[in-house]
């Protein structure tokens, strides 16, 4: 812990059961929306949490504010443990810990006037003794948030306001209790480009005036770069890289961070031909996260140690078949056998093939034609009379390591083992680690 940390998050988990309700799977499945996250937020900084939909960034923000129950781990606010506090014990803290949410239409009660809605927290926390005082404090806050003259807005309803004005209202309500720490969850995502800058500017001004600390949650790396002192990149409930913003934007060391940066469309036509290393596919189902490194099925840099597992081989065939002609597809489908009959476990795949020998030979000799490096992680291909059994090497989930002053969870910087991780096979055996670790493409090409 650093001396100026106001918020310390340690090995935080927020899991949701999927065993209730109409769409129950009935198997006790759970989504690990936040899965072992640790970081600090320093007084007066803007810490950015960046990730795609499904990365767990919103759940992490809600867990910190006590709006989603932590499953385990620790959140300390100025040394005080928040995990395990009941609603009653949490309530007095809420005036110090505020939330600016994404969708102003959902955040504002349409039946309350502006003065009622924005003044509501003052009444809840007993911070104003009279109606007149509430009205006066709300008016001051509206003015600070650029809703001037406040008199024009006090008795209006949210529906009377434009999108940008509503978002200012949400900010006014969040800040009316003069909090110290604000979670801002995509505060400008719903706004038109031409007004985003104004709302961000307002947030910066208020931060300086009121001495706020922000946790800025976004999928937009561009605004994150402008605003944030430090950034954490989330993927499937885990932090894969975090550190000072400048370092992360100039020289990202996790392939996922690099992909996110490459994917940002630049408003500069002269740079449209730059090389982009886009990952394949999308964030997978959080109910069944990949083993090993969770990013490995999409990663353009993945190698043998990264956690290739049974289903990756089936998916590699499916992806290959999108780019071959119909005849090749039919021939190879016959060789592989019906995909519905393939038995997949984490470390083994059993193809009930009519042509086991052909398939075994193909995997050994032509495996590199598959679109991922999945075959480099194959330990053994066994053929019998009516099937081929493919076995994968042991591969651990990567632990966090320090790379050039920032924290990165990636085997490219040396194979590590995450305690309590989802490994393929025996993490201590780490047969894959005997292979040399490849040089990341961004270093091999001599880029910074």
């Amino acid at each position, binding site marked *: 812990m650093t001396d100026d940390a106001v918020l310390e998050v340690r090995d935080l988990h927020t899991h949701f059961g999927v065993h209730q309700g109409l769409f129950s799977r009935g198997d006790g499945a759970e989504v690990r929306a936040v899965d072992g996250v640790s970081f600090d937020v320093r007084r007066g900084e803007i810490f950015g949490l960046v990730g*795609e*939909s499904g990365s767990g960034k919103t759940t992490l923000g809600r867990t910190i504010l006590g709006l989603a129950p932590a499953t385990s781990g620790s959140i300390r606010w100025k040394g005080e443990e928040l995990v395990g506090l009941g609603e009653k014990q949490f309530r007095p803290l809420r005036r110090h810990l505020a939330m600016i949410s994404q969708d102003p239409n959902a955040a504002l009660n349409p039946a309350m006037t502006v003065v009622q809605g924005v003044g509501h927290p003052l009444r809840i926390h007993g911070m104003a003794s009279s109606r007149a005082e509430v009205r006066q404090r709300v008016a001051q806050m509206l003015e600070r948030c650029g809703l001037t003259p406040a008199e024009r807005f006090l008795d209006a309803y949210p529906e009377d306001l*434009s999108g*940008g004005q509503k978002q200012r209202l949400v900010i006014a309500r969040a800040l009316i209790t003069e909090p110290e720490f604000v979670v801002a969850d995509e505060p400008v995502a719903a706004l*038109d*480009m*031409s*007004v*985003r*800058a*104004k709302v*961000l*500017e307002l947030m910066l001004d208020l931060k300086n005036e009121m001495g706020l600390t922000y946790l800025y949650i976004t*999928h*937009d*790396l*561009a*605004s994150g*770069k*402008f605003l944030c002192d430090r950034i954490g990149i989330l993927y499937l409930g885990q932090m894969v890289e975090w550190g000072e913003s400048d370092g992360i*934007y100039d020289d990202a060391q996790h392939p996922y961070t690099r*992909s*996110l*940066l*490459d*994917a*940002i*469309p*630049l*408003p*500069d*036509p*002269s740079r*449209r031909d730059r090389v*982009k290393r*886009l*990952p394949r596919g*999308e*964030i997978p189902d959080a109910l069944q996260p990949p083993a090993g490194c969770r990013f490995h099925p999409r990663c353009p840099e993945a190698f043998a140690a990264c956690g290739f597992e049974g289903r990756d081989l089936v998916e590699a065939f*499916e*992806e290959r*078949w*999108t*780019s071959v002609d*119909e005849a090749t*597809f039919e021939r190879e*489908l016959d060789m592989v056998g019906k*995909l519905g009959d393939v038995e997949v476990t984490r470390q083994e795949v059993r193809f009930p093939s009519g042509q086991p020998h052909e398939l075994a030979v193909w995997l050994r000799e032509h495996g590199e034609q598959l679109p991922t490096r999945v075959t480099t992680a194959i330990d053994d291909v066994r053929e019998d009379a009516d099937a081929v059994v493919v076995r994968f090497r042991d591969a651990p989930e990567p632990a966090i390591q320090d790379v050039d002053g920032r924290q990165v969870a990636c085997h490219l910087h040396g194979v590590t083992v995450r305690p309590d991780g989802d490994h393929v096979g025996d993490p201590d055996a780490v047969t894959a680690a005997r292979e040399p670790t490849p040089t990341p493409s961004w270093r091999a090409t001599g880029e910074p």
Partner: protein
Amino acid sequence: MAESVPTFTTDTATATAPVLEVRDLSVSYGTPRGPLHAVDRVSFDLHAGESLGVVGESGCGKSSLGRGLMQLLPVGAAVGGSVRLRGEELIGTSNSRLRRARGEDIALVFQEPMTRLDPLMRVSDHFVGAIRAHRPKVSKDEAREMAREALAQMGIPRTRADNFPHEFSGGMRQRIMIALGIVLRPAVIVADEPTTALDVIVEAQILDLLDRLRSDEEVGLMLITHNLGIVAETCDRVAVMYAGRIVEIGPVAEVFADPKHPYTQGLLASVISVDTTELVSIDGSPPDLVDPPPACRYRPRCPIKAEGSDRIDPALTSVGADHQAACLLYEGAEIGHGKVQA
């Protein structure tokens, strides 16, 4: 009306005729306060293999323009002007011809793919239905094969053609929608914010696919978006819309390097990119199109307010090769909106 339409031939316009010629297209909706002119006499061309970006804030008429092209509008909306597809006039044509054109000639790709897919139908059956509605002689098996081929082209495994829509992720569904759009090999794709609901990586993947379609299949692509970064990355030309009109149109490289209209300048300055060092925004908001400002519609927000903009509604005028802007800073704009110089 076609006879009186001037030709907008441009320097980069190839010897071939444009695949889509839009002249004085207007779209209006009835409101209790009177008609709302969402699109007000807009003209442009689209060539085969070309991508045209259409940008502007919410409420500037970009989506109405896309829908107006195909006359896919709510009851009570009115369309005027001319839309010629390979020379054939679509405004005022029969409903049966229009239905055929939607899909065979022009495909539309929208923002929310899930609302366009029937959750109870297998993906392949969506294709069979769409293909056989246009080509009754194609057998179901042939249609399924066409579906697998179009899906594979969009990166969806052939083995998953018979899955249901809910078994696919958001990005995959958008790929399915594009595959459905292109299965009949249309000449034009109109994509209205096709990636707005998607994450940045998936967005880049989808834009890449659209770009490959444009170049491999020589499709004319009209990409409607609020994101100027997307236009810079994928489009050849850009049309900037404000208050129902095109206020600037030209080659992307030129418009981004040297925007002529103050609105374009403001939009470009307000983009937040990784290179942003200062936050800039445009004051005010787009006007009410039931009762738009007289004369120049951008004047109330314009930091320049060119001489005469309180009296004259500026026309698009040439400001460079194949580059036009509707602002009184430039000679020729003073003849007024909707009029064209001889």
